[in-house]
């Protein structure tokens, strides 16, 4: 195995690990936001517009960590700077 193969192998494994761990974190966060939002909706149905709006914003903020992981995984796979523009 020459250096390029090792780098490619490492990049693929790193992309998988990045995506797996990143997805787990975002999934836990989004589950908590969803549960808390439903709880608030059940307690105060009159406030549903503002609860829903803030819930969506919070979901997007949490999801963005997973999206950052996705971008890093995509960079590793498709635009890896170490393998010379593969």
């Amino acid at each position, binding site marked *: 195995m020459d250096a390029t193969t090792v780098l490619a192998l490492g990049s693929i494994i790193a992309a998988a690990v990045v995506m797996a761990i990143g997805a787990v974190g975002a999934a836990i966060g989004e589950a908590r936001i969803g549960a808390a939002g439903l709880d608030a909706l059940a307690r105060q149905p009159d406030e549903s517009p503002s609860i829903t709006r803030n819930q969506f*914003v919070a979901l997007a903020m949490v999801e963005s960590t997973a999206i950052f992981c996705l971008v890093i995984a995509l960079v590793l796979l498709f635009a890896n700077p170490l393998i010379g523009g593969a």
Partner: protein
Amino acid sequence: MRINIFTDEALLWLGPFPLTPTMITSTVVSVLLVAAGWLVARAVVKRPDGRAAAAGRSAVRFIQDLVQVTAGRRSEAVEVFAGTLMLFIAGSALLGQLPSVHPPTATLGATAALAALVFLAVPVAGIRARGLRLYLSHYLKPNPVLFPLHMITELSRTVALALRLFGNMLSGQIVVAVIVSLVGLVVPIPLMALDLLIGFLQAYIFTILACAYIGAGIQVGETGRT
């Protein structure tokens, strides 16, 4: 499907300037939106109780309420900016549903440009509302030691805006491409609908965050806000 992260393939070169698919699609979205806006504006004048006029008025009211709630006050400039952002991102998500059309917001350059607009709009709005001295002095509050942290905040939230929109739109494209290459018929439809929903949601969220950042810039120095 080729996936470009930092680059965009050039269709043809006009002298030293490349012409990329993103430039074409974003121009198409802009032209379509301007034409639709012109038609709706004419409908509001000519037939005030028609459907187009009602749709236009409710869209304007939606943006006004959103700016009022998230930026904390009414401001026509912020409303125009927020409406433009939301309509452009939602329009490109809609355009990206056409087969083999890559939405402009699935390119890092386009989303970085949108985020840079927000990055520049915050100090412009803050200086217009508060004056240069008061706005710049908020970077040194509560303590001048925190100046680097203010800088990091401004930069990281801009990068986050760009990457969030880019990642969401591109991931939808990738998922649909993978499913189409596996099955091809009927099965991708719910995923395309999810992609469209995420596109509209991202338009909403990008606009809300831009309004919140601009609102924080406008309200510099008010009652304990830094």
